[in-house]
């Protein structure tokens, strides 16, 4: 039996600086996970991923990552995605200090 679709966001890295970015509902790329479009429909997710993959001069390596609704917007589910929202744990570098 196919597994139920769990909510997703489209995420990628920015071509120029490699920073983690998220696709928004109004077709922008945000550096904030909370601004991502939370996709709850599988067919829509496929279309949104294709939208992202077409933007070859802006984004690299787009994929769908599990997410869930939170107080300020979508939140990551897996620890890897949590790390991507903030940066490394050994230095105050990356999003945790830049956003």
């Amino acid at each position, binding site marked *: 039996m196919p597994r139920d679709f769990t909510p997703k966001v489209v995420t990628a890295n920015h071509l*120029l600086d*490699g920073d983690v970015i998220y696709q928004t509902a109004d077709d922008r790329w945000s550096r904030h996970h909370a601004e991502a479009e939370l996709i709850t429909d599988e067919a829509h997710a496929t279309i949104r991923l294709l939208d992202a993959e077409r933007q070859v001069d802006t984004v690299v390596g787009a994929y769908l990552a599990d997410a869930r609704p939170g107080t300020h917007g979508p939140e990551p589910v897996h620890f890897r995605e949590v790390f991507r929202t903030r940066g*490394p744990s*050994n230095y105050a*570098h*990356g999003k945790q200090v830049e956003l």
Partner: protein
Amino acid sequence: MYRYNEFDRDFLAERNRQFRAQVERRIDGSLTEEEFKPLRLMNGLYLQLHAYMLRVAIPYGTLNSAQMRQLAYLAERWDKGYGHFTTRQNIQYNWPRLSDVPDMLDALAEVGLHAIQTSGNTIRNVTADHFAGAAADEVADPRPVAELIRQWSTDHPEFQFMPRKFKFAITGAPNDRAVTAAHDIGLRIVERGGEIGYTVLVGGGLGRTPMIGKVLAEFIPAEDLLPYLEATVAVWNAIGRRDNKFKARIKILVHEVGLDALRAEVEEEFTLRKPLYAGGRDVALLEEIAGHFAPPEFETTPTETYDAAYASDPVFRSWADTNLAPHRADGYAIVTVSLKKQGDTPGDATADQMRVMADLAERYAHDELRISHEQNVILPHVHKRHLPAIHAALKAAGLATANIGLVSDIIACPGMDYCALATARSIPVAQQIATRFDELKLEHEIGPLKIKISGCINACGHHHVGHIGILGLDRAGVENYQITLGGDGTEDAVIGTRTGPGFAYDEIVGAVETILKTYLSLREDPSETFLQTCRRLGIAPFKAALYPEAKTRAA
């Protein structure tokens, strides 16, 4: 040290010019990522979790002070003020912008450095004993051959699209500090009847399927070495598996066809290729390269300043006892500068620290530095009279940690703090273990110990050959750490044995503490090292201590 000739300089300039144009075409959208990726990988540029990462080769781990200063300049100018020295004697910059990378490569070329073939399915940076040319136990300096292999393999047209990456390591000493048995080809310089030759190991490697290298040839004379290596790589390149990434390394070929069958294939190929090397151009080149590595003129002056400091200063003495190794020349020592200050990131150095080490090398150490696969920096030729001054300068720069070969001298890959392939974090685990044992003041009591941590199955942190190996995995969305015991990366190479179920992120430090307290209670006397205790008793007593519930259930 090898000095670039005009050909080397032109080659590198042309290669950098090509890559600059490729980056421009990627940024303006005329190259897709799919087209660009193999090109950037050939030039050491990865895209990691949070940013791009540039991996710069430090061929066989050897640097001069000008090169080290340039690494510092790159760190400051285009990164966040530091660099990460890796287990393959490379340096990684974790935060470059794509558009800056061509400038970084040009800056590296100014001092004869590059990032070519530090990634991709090519022959990678050749690693060597970090004490090469200095060690008291050495048969011959392995770096001339390493440089020969670098030149031969760089842009080698036959070996640019191989089934998988290919790694060489070489040692010139019987005490193997280069982990040669864990490489696709490991070379060991040996002497037979006054002649120098090479024992060729094949099919070693860690990763998903860890294997210890097997002896393909006991003794290959210098004039046959390059054609023999070329034949070996060519055979694998032709028949190695390309259908499955996880079965593509030469270790799998050795396993599937058998060592004897592979040897027969290599020898057949060798007889075909040997005539191409007629005329001995490779041997002449090796001799020419060897001239670049002539040892410095060692002085014979008294070591009184050292002796006095050793007798009177306990901090200096402690550092000297752990961080110095015997040098081939009287009155000299090999200094290992620890990049493992407890609580810091293993292998990281700031730009300022790099400059301090460069200055010390220039002033006191014949202008030479080495990077070890254990992620430390070496001053290979230091007269002992300079050691007190060197120690004082290192101390002022936060580089005088006296812990080489001890519990806090941990190898750790970048793990999920940086690496896109990682399944768990490595760095904070290393930081916490080092800090914990520093607090317990048990480091010197425990004695020689190699802890190696990898954040995924690819084993960049060499966990299989750690006395204590730690492998970070993702178990149902949670970080989980498996432990192996009894691994050994030396000439007696052994893959460690897994203890059992893994430990959670907040349990792993406690588990290591349990193992080491068990060791302290079981060792025959303080001279028996952890590895010796492990070999004498096996892993059973450690398992019993780690999993007391299992014992209860069995009873």
